[in-house]
């Protein structure tokens, strides 16, 4: 409820401001560029699919946002649906609301019953604001008297191919940095962020670092949306973009721009298209650019006007390991309230309240194997069911059932201590067994209140119907989940943890223990790979990579205790390393295959299966990219992740693999080959372990599945001890019985 009110207030404010602004704008700029967008329901609904409306849950909604540099000039709702054949025509209807304003009614005609129907409902663009909600209300009837409002024949399925046709019109924007990061990043835009970065030519290391930090900062803003940073050399972008320029080295289109006397961030319009904005990051030299980017990352809250100069950015306290803002705290129990992403996430209402979900991002190296479970203290409140009818609360993790609790009629709240079981549930109650459920890097904890709603229907002679009352359920924000006290220990190489969490680089959120090795004079594709990779890590951590170190000479950095991100190619010195199981050079590639492919990559490595068994060399002209992970040859606790590509197309493949969530999921093991067809991952070679696990815990870990070995050791220990004890006691007793032997 609170959520609705807040949204409503937000919208009222938004609409007022927007309507006023757009009218004036529309008057003057009829030729403003427009784009037509078709938003399919399949992407908008919560379930990412069709929108079923039923008697028990007659309402469905989709939401969409509008960027601040655009306005919707016309909108149409294209509804595709199949109504139940049992409905009474005309009495049954679908109401369409836009931001709670009625936009139209779709009566169900007799010929539509049971057939796929298409209806267009025009939406009044004046009611469209920043955040918008299109709500469908289903009013269904199947008989005239004594109707059961939740009868199973009351349904209407809105297909996922239904869509919103929107015509966006660009708005001319003032060059005002106080809106920053808009329009470069707009959080109402759910599309992946694409932000071109423009350099005068192949940039020096410091300039690359500035770009990398900025990319990771934008990645942190973009979060789940995805991000892409195409790189242009001395070329104007076609959309909002970032331009790096020093006083000496500038793209041609900025040649006559006045020199700056310090790190400066400025927003200007595209010289050819006033609707496109450019963010200039300027400085006297490359170092100034880094400072300017740091200013963006740490001080954008103070930005205003068209141009700002960054006077100074000083770090005050170093980041601690595992303190990334996007990760669940591991130093103390975390309240659910800290984990929620938006207000109202932990409450729900309705006849069948929709499930509530919490996302838990965990450091990938939490060592939780063999732990009995994670303590979760769950408090919840609910509308009590009238009878003990089997209504229940279902708790599931990553779509796997954890526990169910029945909702008792006499109570309205519950409090449960729950061990999130990581292993087989051997307590045997409820016949509930969880198949080796494991927490991954990103986990969804879901709470679903299932009500068995009893509807009193009555008989045809004496008919009584009741207005069904929606059930209100709340998970208390004070509920806690505790990930503290776990050791950090993980078998590497593990590309899955790199793909899903940027590990091991993200161990320090500012990447201050990471080194990115780039090629000398990188081309745009290679640079783009660097920016995309750091942007992805930023999206995982939620923090800019302020501490990252860049180098183009592998040799110089040997004695630094850092994790290494290699971009482009394996340095020549490493080519003979036995731990590198995939190599390619020009058109020739080598790969080593494991003795047996890991069936479940998330399980602990098995050195027998992973042993390299063969090596193959293939020559081909086709493009290819690869991601490989291996132990740093200089520090045994450090890792190298290499992003390799052989051609511009190869880099393109690589960038797609890093940015696309679906493709990223296929990255795992120690070697991933990226071809036009997709990604193939292998786990091959000896695993190495990163993190700290005391020697005794290692022994425990290795002995845990071998009770017979331990029993033998016990017998041995007891036998040895008794042998010694027996001899000593025998001597002692003899001495006791002959006292004069004593001194």
């Amino acid at each position, binding site marked *: 409820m609170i959520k609705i009110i807040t949204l409503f207030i937000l919208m009222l404010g938004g609409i007022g401001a927007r309507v006023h602004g757009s009218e004036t704008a529309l008057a003057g700029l009829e030729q403003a560029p427009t784009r037509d967008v078709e938003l399919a329901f399949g992407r908008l609904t919560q379930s990412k699919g069709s929108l079923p409306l039923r008697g028990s849950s007659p309402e469905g909604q989709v939401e969409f946002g509008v960027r601040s540099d655009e306005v919707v000039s016309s909108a149409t709702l294209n509804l595709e649906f199949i109504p139940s054949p049992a409905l009474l025509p005309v009495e049954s209807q679908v109401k369409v609301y836009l931001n709670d304003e009625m936009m139209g009614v779709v009566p169900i005609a007799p010929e539509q019953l049971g057939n796929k129907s298409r209806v267009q409902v025009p939406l009044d663009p004046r009611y469209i604001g920043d955040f918008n909600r299109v709500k469908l209300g289903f009013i269904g009837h199947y008989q005239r008297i004594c109707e059961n409002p939740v009868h199973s024949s009351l349904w209407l399925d809105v297909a996922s191919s239904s869509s919103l046709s929107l015509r966006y019109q660009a708005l001319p924007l003032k060059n005002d940095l106080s809106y920053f990061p808009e329009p470069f990043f707009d959080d109402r835009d759910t599309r992946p962020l694409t932000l071109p970065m423009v350099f005068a030519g192949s940039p020096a290391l410091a300039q690359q670092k500035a770009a990398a930090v900025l990319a990771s900062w934008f990645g942190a803003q973009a979060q789940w949306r995805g991000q892409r940073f195409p790189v242009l050399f001395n070329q104007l972008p076609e959309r909002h973009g970032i331009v790096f320029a020093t006083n000496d080295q500038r793209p041609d289109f900025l040649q006559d721009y006045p020199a700056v006397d310090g790190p400066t961030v400025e927003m200007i319009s595209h010289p050819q298209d006033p609707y496109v904005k450019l963010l200039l990051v300027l400085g006297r030299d490359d170092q100034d650019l880094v400072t300017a980017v740091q200013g963006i990352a740490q001080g954008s809250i103070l930005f205003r006007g068209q141009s700002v100069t960054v006077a100074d950015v000083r770090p005050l306290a170093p980041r601690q390991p595992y303190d990334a803002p996007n990760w669940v705290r591991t130093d103390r129990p975390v309240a659910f309230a800290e984990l929620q992403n938006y207000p109202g996430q932990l409450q729900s209402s309705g006849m069948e309240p929709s499930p509530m979900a919490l996302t838990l991002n965990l450091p990938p190296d939490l060592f939780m194997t*063999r732990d*009995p479970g994670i*303590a979760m*203290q769950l408090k919840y409140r609910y509308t009590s069911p009238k009878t003990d009818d089997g209504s229940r609360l279902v708790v599931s993790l990553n779509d796997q059932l954890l526990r169910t609790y029945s909702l008792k009629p006499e109570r309205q709240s519950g409090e449960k*201590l729950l061990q999130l079981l990581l*292993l*087989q549930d*051997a*307590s*045997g*109650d*409820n016949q509930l067994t969880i198949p080796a459920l494991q927490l991954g890097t990103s986990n969804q904890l879901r709470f679903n209140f299932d009500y068995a709603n009893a509807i009193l229907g009555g008989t045809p002679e004496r008919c009584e119907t009741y207005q069904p009352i929606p059930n209100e359920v709340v998970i208390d924000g004070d509920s806690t989940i505790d990930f503290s006290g776990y050791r950090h220990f993980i078998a590497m190489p593990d590309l899955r943890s790199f793909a899903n969490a940027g590990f091991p680089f993200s161990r320090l959120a500012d990447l201050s223990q990471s080194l990115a090795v780039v090629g000398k004079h990188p081309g745009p594709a290679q640079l783009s790979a660097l920016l995309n990779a750091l942007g992805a890590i930023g999206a995982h951590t939620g923090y800019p990579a302020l501490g990252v170190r860049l180098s183009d000479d592998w040799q110089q950095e040997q004695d630094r205790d850092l994790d290494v991100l290699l971009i482009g190619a394996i340095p020549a010195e490493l080519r003979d390393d036995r731990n590198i199981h995939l190599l390619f050079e020009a058109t020739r590639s080598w790969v080593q295959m494991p003795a047996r492919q890991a069936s479940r990559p998330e399980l602990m490595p098995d050195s027998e299966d992973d042993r390299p068994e063969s090596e193959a060399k293939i020559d081909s002209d086709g493009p290819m990219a690869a991601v490989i992970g291996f132990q740093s040859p200089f520090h045994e606790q450090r890792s190298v992740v290499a992003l390799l590509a052989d051609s511009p197309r190869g880099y393109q493949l690589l960038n797609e693999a890093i940015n696309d969530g679906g493709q990223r999921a296929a990255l795992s093991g120690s070697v991933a080959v990226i071809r036009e067809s997709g990604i193939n991952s292998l786990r091959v070679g000896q695993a190495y372990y990163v993190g700290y696990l005391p020697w*005794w815990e290692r*022994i*425990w870990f290795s*002995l*845990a*599945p*071998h*009770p*017979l070995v*331990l*029993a033998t*050791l*016990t*017998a*041995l*220990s*007891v*036998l*040895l*001890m*008794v*042998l*010694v*004890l*027996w001899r000593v*006691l*025998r001597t*002692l*007793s*003899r001495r*006791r*019985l*002959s*006292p*004069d*032997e004593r001194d």
Partner: protein
Amino acid sequence: MNWLMGPLLSQGLRALGLRYRGYRSQGSSVPAAGLCCAGLLLAWSLFRLESPGWQALRTRHGYWFPHLAPERPRSGDGLRYLLQAGWLLLTRPAGQRQPIWPARWRDAGSRRRRSASVADRQESETASPSSPRGLRRIGRMLMVLVSVLLALLCISQPFDLQTQLVFVMVLWAMAMAVRRLPGRFAALLMIMLSLLVSCRYLWWRYTSTLNWDDPLSLLFGLLLLAAETYAWLVLVLGYFQSLWPLHRQPTPLTAAPADWPVIDIMVPTYNEPLSVVKPTIYAALGIDWPKDKLNIYLLDDGDRATFREFAAEAGVRYIARPTHEHAKAGNLNYALRQAEGEFVAIFDCDHVPTRTFLQLTMGWFFKDKKLAMLQTPHHFFSPDPFERNLGRFGQTPNEGSLFYGLLQDGNDMWDATFFCGSCAVIRRSALDEVGGIAVETVTEDAHTSLRLHRLGYTSAYIRIPQAAGLATESLSAHIGQRIRWARGMVQIFRLDNPLLGKGLKLTQRLCYANAMLHFLSGIPRLIFLTAPLAFLLLHAYIIYAPALAIALYMLPHMIHANLANSRIQGKYRYSFWSEVYESVLAWYIARPTTVALFNPHKGTFNVTGKGGLVEQAHVDWEISRPYLVLVLLNLCGLIAGGWRLAYGDADEIPTVILSLGWVLFNMLILGGAIAVAVEARQVRQAHRVDIALPAAVKRADGHLFPCTVRDYSDGGVGIELRQDGVLQEGEPITLLLKQGQRECTFPATVRRRVGTRIGLQLSTMTREQHIAFIQCTFARADTWARWQDEFARDKPMASLSDVLALGWNGFQSLLDYLPSPLTRLSAGVSRLLAWLASFIPRNPDQDMPLSGPSRTFAQP
């Protein structure tokens, strides 16, 4: 070090090379010969192979290892030797030791060893670094280190439930395998296994069963954990105490009788009737010791004229002191100032000494000049309240058996035998050095021996009863006595803590600490009796773990502890009886020990009453009140458990069932405590003692009939004739008994006659006759020798069902004494249960006696 070891090493290497070549020439393979050489090296560094014992073993190699050829080793021979040695160690009966270590167990051997070890020591002092002895010590240390590390791993290794199940089953199988094997080695194995499993349990409890999120659960959980830690500590110390009972035998008096020391026998009394004291004094008069070197003192703190007259008549010295401070200790100290003997023997006024008491004990004082105190067991010929009220006299070892049979004997190994107030001899010079009997605490005896030990004096214990007395006759008196002991021990713990202070060896400190800790069992026991209620009534998770895990950790801990204890103390206390004994006392010693712990000077001395009667069977309601309260609480727990089963959370059902099982066990133990409080009738003033003693009866007509005395008391004798029908009821006869070479006659009347069994009542005896009777019966040297022999071997499961049946009987008799229709109901229920139980099949049992010893009716 290196230059010292150098020549030795090269010599050894040469010898080893020779041996290797020898093996090879006999046709051994390279690995077999190499392994054998390595094994020899290891054996040589661990054991004294050159010693006569090992030499003897090696000469008889073919006998002990018939399947192994030493001159031509095979590759698996190391394991074969190990297995065969283990087999021999475990299976060889104790009597066959001599062939292996012929010298060790004979006197001649000990003499040899004495000289040898002195020589050894001198040798090791001069050339310690290079001697194989030093190496061997290092080898042994390494062995201990390795085994301790392994043990730590086994204790701490976390397992999930299935693997834990496998693990504990294997350990259990090991324990069961060695359980029946004879010898101390197997007993030590059992102890070590039990220790390991219990440590593992406690480790698990501390590391993974506390719920820090819920304060209520945490509170109760910590309470239970503290109680369990206490129980663990007592278990460990108990194992330590009984690791190696010394079985000290009497040693001959080496000096000529003229050089024997003067001994004062002191019999303190306070309020006991004269009839109790008389036999003691009479028996003391008959003790074998030169009369001029033996002074008997009757120390009457009650200052009674009859006692003074009796002492004068009997010819013993009478001492009554003008003031009465410090009770028994004060009484003794007052008398000690007037006595001048070199040794003092102390007997409680009801402890009748046998004639051999001094002869058996004094030898050790000659042998060990530092010996300050020698204790013998307290033996009771009357049933204690447990035995009487439960009807178990003579069927199960009594409560004291464990202490005098095992613990004191075990203490003796560590030179930590306590003085127990009676039946002991003390060296006067040592006693004077510690300022006489200690008066600061109410257990003056233990405190005195603690002080003696602190001065470096030694103590000894001979496990042969040399005196016997009366047990306390009522439960309340028994409890009163235990309260006194408990308070006294805790007082010592506070005032003169054995763990701190000077003079004691670590082993002595541990033994004393255990004796004192033992009496703090009240509160932990009460916690165990109520712990499951915290879950059933208050829903506090006292052990925060799944029920199955609790079972998989706790049960092995309990089973192994019981198996080990059954093995080491089964002869002296049957399994699970401790539960009953401790539960009865728990409530009563909880308060005084706690008070004494905080304020050791509070509390008074109470005298243990003896020689009284219980006129009528009754329930001692006052004594059993706390148990009734506990029973009611547990009953509430049962009801709550039933409710939880029916309506509670389905997830908790295993936990509820586990708790209910625990509650039921507690209920039955409490039932046992109540059964003890049902005081059985006790009317016979003089207690019968069973014996088999050749004697004769003379009829008035002068006919003599040989007979066997089957039992006797202070006023009557039961005899068994060889033929039937020679005596008539009411017939006056004369009984002839032998005392050494002397024959004594006692006039008596036939009271009862059942076949050949005759009950005689002794006529009023003169003083001389009475002395003679006591010396012919109670004071005979062999009277109490059969002590302990009549008990069958402990069977834990049988004992458990015994104890549980006892608990059930307790409830039944409780209802019997309730004036209500409940009586009939309970009778019906128990008849039904007995009927159901009669269907259970059972094994014919050879070990158990068919019934209690049958008795004739010696009626006073």
